[in-house]
């Protein structure tokens, strides 16, 4: 049985005081310490009572700010009904908490509300956490008397940060991601291995080719090699090509020396498995030790490479969009700030050759910029295209202004990539386009000659 966390917190505070003060009379010192703690807790309590008096233009109700804002209990205690209501909307399939398995449906209904806390919340929070072994036991502050529906870590949270990154095109060094040749087989295996990882899922084809290319082969010659060590700083993410690895977690939070230093074996990874993905975010201590159980091969990817690939392509795409937007006459009065907001909101879409992107007569909804490929403009009654579009050309922008039907159709002649934004999206970000146009010339917006702006609007 472990000691209550409140107790451990107090004792470790006392230990620190003892170290600091080095008292001659230890017993008296401890007695004083506890008296002081008691005094301050009481003061806190009394203080909270005072806060509950109504004042300050009704900012504080008749309750301490700590009251359960949802509960009905006037006592301010964390009530059973409050807990129940927090749970009832949780969808079990998405709960990733280690305690989730023990949320028995309807448990709250069975728990008699006047039973002692431990049994009321028996299947929640604390005891559940102890049974299901989270990586590190959550620590509650000394003031937390009741359990929490979720074993949320109540401590102060530390900030994290990765190395500072500046896009290649904004500096002078010409960075290109490392490239390591792979067979088609290896490539498809790697693709499958990272497919389920949310960090890789949003990558487009180019990015994903770059990232896969950057993975570097790392032979592990024998069994017993610790690829990563719990508690060490981590810079690499690994995918297993072949072989196998055991995963160990030491409760102390780091790999210790000695025979039991590895801690408990919590799992194994084999071909297609991966580990160490947190290192792709920032430099954090490894949560486990991973040891080879035979000669194996890994693919390794470091954080800076991964994040630079993502950053460079995002950066280039944004600058390209901003450049395109500068050419759009209708939007010429946008400030750089507004332009960057629109660039951020543009959505990329791909169409195969022969797709009708907008159709003559339809009500226009969105505006398009041609990012790659080519397209042609057709009007009813003529067989020949009336116009050709290439990279950087834009069309359909009058849709941002009014609901007039499209004056022509645009059909892709090659595979194309377009950046697009709807009228709603535009207005949500910057308000009506009319207002933006009026900035240039107050008379313009009403008397606007649409022909001058969009050839597609020509009747």
């Amino acid at each position: 049985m472990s000691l209550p966390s409140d107790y451990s917190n107090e004792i470790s505070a006392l230990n620190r005081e003892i170290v600091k003060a080095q008292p001659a009379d230890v017993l008296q010192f401890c007695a004083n310490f506890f008296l002081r703690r008691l005094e301050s807790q009481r003061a806190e309590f009394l203080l909270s009572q005072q806060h509950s008096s109504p004042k300050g233009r009704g900012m504080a109700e008749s309750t301490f700010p700590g009251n359960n804002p949802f509960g009905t209990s006037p006592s301010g205690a964390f009530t059973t009904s409050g807990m129940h209501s927090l749970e009832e909307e949780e969808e079990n399939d998405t709960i990733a908490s280690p305690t989730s398995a023990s949320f028995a449906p309807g448990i709250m209904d069975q728990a008699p509300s006047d039973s002692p806390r431990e049994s009321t919340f028996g299947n929640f929070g604390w005891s559940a956490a102890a049974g299901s072994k989270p990586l590190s036991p959550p620590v509650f502050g000394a003031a937390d008397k009741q359990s929490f529906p979720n074993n949320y870590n109540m401590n102060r949270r530390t900030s994290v940060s990765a190395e500072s990154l500046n896009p290649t095109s904004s500096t002078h060094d010409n960075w290109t991601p490392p490239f390591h040749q792979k067979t088609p087989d290896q490539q498809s295996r790697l693709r499958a291995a990272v497919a389920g990882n949310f960090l890789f899922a949003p990558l487009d084809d180019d990015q994903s080719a770059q990232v896969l290319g950057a993975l570097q082969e790392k032979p592990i010659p024998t069994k017993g090699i610790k690829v990563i060590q719990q508690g060490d700083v981590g810079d690499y993410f690994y995918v297993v090509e072949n072989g196998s690895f055991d995963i160990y977690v030491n409760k102390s939070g780091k790999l210790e020396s000695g025979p039991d230093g590895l801690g408990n074996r919590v799992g194994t990874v084999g071909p297609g498995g991966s580990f160490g993905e947190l290192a792709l975010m920032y430099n954090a201590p490894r949560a486990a030790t991973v040891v080879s159980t035979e000669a194996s091969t890994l693919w390794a990817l470091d954080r800076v490479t991964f994040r630079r690939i993502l950053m460079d392509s995002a950066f280039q795409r944004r600058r390209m969009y901003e450049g395109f937007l500068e050419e759009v006459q209708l939007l010429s009065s946008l400030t750089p700030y507004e332009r960057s907001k629109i660039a951020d909101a543009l959505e990329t879409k791909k169409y195969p050759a022969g797709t009708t992107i907008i159709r003559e007569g339809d009500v226009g909804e969105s505006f398009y910029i041609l990012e790659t490929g080519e397209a042609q403009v057709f009007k009813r009654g003529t067989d020949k295209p009336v116009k050709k579009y290439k990279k950087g050309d834009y069309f359909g922008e009058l849709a941002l202004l009014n609901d007039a039907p499209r004056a022509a159709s645009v059909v892709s002649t090659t595979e194309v990539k377009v950046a697009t934004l709807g009228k709603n999206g535009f207005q949500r970000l910057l308000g009506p386009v009319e207002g933006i146009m009026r900035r240039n010339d107050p008379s313009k917006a009403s008397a606007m000659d649409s022909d001058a702006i969009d050839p597609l609007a020509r009747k």
Partner: protein
Amino acid sequence: MAAKIHQMLHHHSSSKDSGAPSEPDSTSPFERQDSAMDRAREDEKRALAQWEDKQRPMSPGEVHMDPERKAVGHSSRTLRKQDFELIKTLGTGTFARVWLVRLLDDRKGAQDSVFALKILRKVDVIRLKQVEHVRNERNVLAAVAGHPFITTMVASFQDHDSLYMLLDYCPGGEVFSYLRRARRFNEPTSQFYAAEIVLILEYLHEKEGVAYRDLKPENILIDAEGHLKLVDFGFAKKVENRETYTLCGTPEYLAPEVIRNTGHGTAVDWWAFGILVYEFLVGQPPFWDQNPMKIYEQIVEGRLRFPSAMSSSARDLISGLCTVDTSKRLGNIQGGAQAVKSHPWFANIDWDQLYQRKVQGPIVPHLRGPADTRNFDEYEPESGEREAYGEELRAKWEGFFDDF
């Protein structure tokens, strides 16, 4: 993770002899003594001792002035660590330690001149690759000094191996402590604190073009009158109309675009603000797991769950703020901060009165005096060992600290 800085406490006497500094000095140019310098220092200390008296909320326009022309926020060439008595550690961060200090000054009344002094050792800043962040922090704090809800950096200075930021002392401690003790805040309390934060974000984003990037209850302090003060501008950055890419923040509060590295801007603060309001009302943030990767997975998916008893306007506000698509995120869309201020959840807030600090806060700390530290935790004393800021490091980095 949290590397403690190893600043040894120079034990210098806190008694009366320091009105006229006369200790023998090292050769450091920062500690050079001459009578002109002494006089300038005395002037500066007098101004410091009086700073409290003339405090009143500056208008956003006044705050926005050039720091070198404002009463606060300048880089001081005369102040030194020896001008202060270090009383107690108020907090430690990843690489900084914040002390409660008293201005050493003979004049009467000066006994009451207490400040918070944030001390960063240059070696630690360099080792933890935070040089750029620390420069941003100083410059942003200088630029915003005087805002009613941001901790005022009265001055900054440096010596041979450390950087110093002299801050207004906020005796109420962290909102974090009140929130954890209370478990949850009721709606009026949450609205009051959230509203003051909105005014901060409005100012930072729209007047300064600054993204704060580390909003959380740990970084929000309560001042003697019960108003908020935002501290720790370590990740604050002037972004204006350019997006930025360096991942930083606190796991539960990271915005999806930061995790995905697609470039981020001031919109991350509105996301974090939604998380904050949720945490005020519920007692824990919406996305959480033991395993940080699972937190991030939940964040990029962005599916919020609310306790059934949460008011519909609170849900609506949080959903608007915690929207994965930045082009739909409240605060980032048309209207900016104004759109947040007009949200029904804030219907009871008088924004002008609030900015003027005329609205009474729900918690007003009970204090015995200006130097009362009862609202702060105890921290371990600093360990004695310290890495030297050697010639090599100095040659490479000292230039970066020039304007401190």
